[in-house]
């Protein structure tokens, strides 16, 4: 069965929208991270879709880069979230305002 490329793209757009909506509405740092990941992977999906449609391996190669960078980012980001959670039992980003000028 051959799924049309447009379906992939629509799915990616829905995923991106969910991720973006979640990022804008949620306050927990952890959930916001998950939303960011969702958006990243939505983008990855479009990359892969276009790689297949256009027959260009470059799109798939880029996805690997994005996954590696996202993994590194999550490691650092989760480390910070854990450290913050240990100190103040809450990960609401609205309360993290010590560095505000």
């Amino acid at each position: 069965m051959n799924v049309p490329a447009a379906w992939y793209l629509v799915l990616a757009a829905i995923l991106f929208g969910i991720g973006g909506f979640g990022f804008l509405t949620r306050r927990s740092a952890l959930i916001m991270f998950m939303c960011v990941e969702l958006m990243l992977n939505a983008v990855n999906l479009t990359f892969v879709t276009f790689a297949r449609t256009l027959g260009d391996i470059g799109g798939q190669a880029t996805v690997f880069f994005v996954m590696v960078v996202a993994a590194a980012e999550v490691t650092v980001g989760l480390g910070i979230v854990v450290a913050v959670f240990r100190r103040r039992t809450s990960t609401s980003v609205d309360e993290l305002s010590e560095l505000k000028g």
Partner: protein
Amino acid sequence: MAHVTTLLLLLPLLGFAFVLLNGKNMNESQIGYVATGVVGLSFVASVVTFVLLLHRSDRQVTVHLFNWIDVGTLHVPAAMLVDPLSITMCLFVTGISTLIHLYSISYMHGEKDYKKFFLYLNLFVFSMLTLVLANNLVFTFVGWEGVGVCSYWLVSYYFDRDSASSAGKKAFIYNRVGDVGLLLAMFLLFSRTGTLNYLGVFQKAGSLSPTVATLVVLALLLAATGKSAQIPLFNWLPDAMEGPTPVSALIHAATMVTAGVYLLVRMSPVLALSSSGRLTIAIIGGVTAFVAATIATSQKDIKKVLAFSTVSQIGYMVLAVGVGAYAAAIFLMVSHAFFKALLFLGSGSVIHSLNGEQDLRKMGALQRFLPLTFPTFLIGWLTISGIPPFAGFWSKGDVLTNVFAHDKPLWVLGVVTAILTAYYMSRLFVLTFRGTERFREVTHGHDPHESAWLMTLPLVVLAVLSVLGGVLDLPWIHHNSLAGFLSSTFGYVAPIGAQSTLSQWGLAIVDVAAALVGLAAAFSIWRSRSEDERLTPPFLEHVWYWDDFYDATIGRPLERVAHFSDTVVEEEVIDGAVMGIAGGIHRSAEGVRKIQSGFVRHYALAMALGIAVIVVYLVARAG
């Protein structure tokens, strides 16, 4: 000769530098004697220069020190012009300075700022010598300002007294007004002749148009009225009496205040080009002489009387310059330096003996207690009154004879002034030395004591000079005397008309009669009283309300402008603009500040919207 003249100029400066750098290790009398010594040596150098000059046929030497300003066509060297006029000035300036320095050693004894006094005094002598020796107007201006600032420092010497510091400021500001005149004269002369060197200007003076020449003369006159205390800028001089008495004697009687007359005489070839300019000079001089003499009759402070007397005598000199009698002006300047320095130092001795009292009403009958001050003051009094054979008779007579030949109304004014002069000086003399004792309260019942020899010696020397000063220029030997010596300096000497011996005798008799009338009047009035409201009307005592006039016409309006600037321009316009801009920025910042919520999602939303806008734009453009 160049070396001697350089020494003559630089010795007082050396003394100044030495005391300035070394004064900490010196005691009072060492400072005094060093300062006096350098000026004395400068006098010796003047005598040597004078003798050397006499042996030259051209009687004119330029001594170049260094190139000072060299810009384009403007060449101003620091150079000295030694000629009969400048050396005459040097001789009496250094001579009298030496005597007054000597006097000051004792007079200033125990003053807090003893060192400062002698520093300023030495610097003053240096500036004065620069003024008279300079060979161009710019270098003269250096000396001109130098004496001005020394005068300011010395008038404000007791600066912890309010009256002294404001008198200093007054002197300084009045002089500034006059200085504008000198600067204007320089600008005019440079634009028309391309040089400021005296000899160069005189060479090209012929090419000046009459209008320009008159403007230059009037500008020079303005300069002279400031420095020499003439109408309309004369009333700083009486206030300048706040300075120590030796300063009054040296700067405000004998030397600095005659600088204006010197400048006019020096520029005589330019004066020769403008008869209306000279007439203005003569009128200013004559009127000043008269006005100041009327004021002097009503002053209660011994030094104020002498100050107005100085203004009046300088008025005579300016009058002489105005009628072209330059030699007579210089003759009166020199003899006036002798007798006015004598009178001031004598009054200083009197003030010293009365513990600083200057009020004539608290003196009287001092003759007995001051055995040296009294006879010397007596000589000074007779000299200024114009009694023969003292110097004042000859010099004032010389001036009046010349004025008679040119302008009868001014001559009448001069003779009336001579009567007034004899009157106010006799009043001063009687109130100080004769009449009843009124000083016991001041001296706490003690007898006044004569001053130390350091103070009386200069009195004696000056008294001798006042007696003999007339021989400088006796009328029947004009050609071998001061007038003949000086004549080569003047571009134009007014012909003295056909003055017969008979009319000269006649004029001399008028002078003596005028003096005797004044003398007799003063003696009969003031022998038996010390004050009389009718004879010292407030109008005269308050200097014809001249200060009040300036206050009303210049001072108050300026004050109002200043008040307006302070309360309106400063507070509302300038402050208003500054505060308005700052407030506007503050208020707009308050509004913009709300965008910075501190919530990450707001920023993320803004970012998303921004990207959306860009994408829409790109799509729209592609489509």
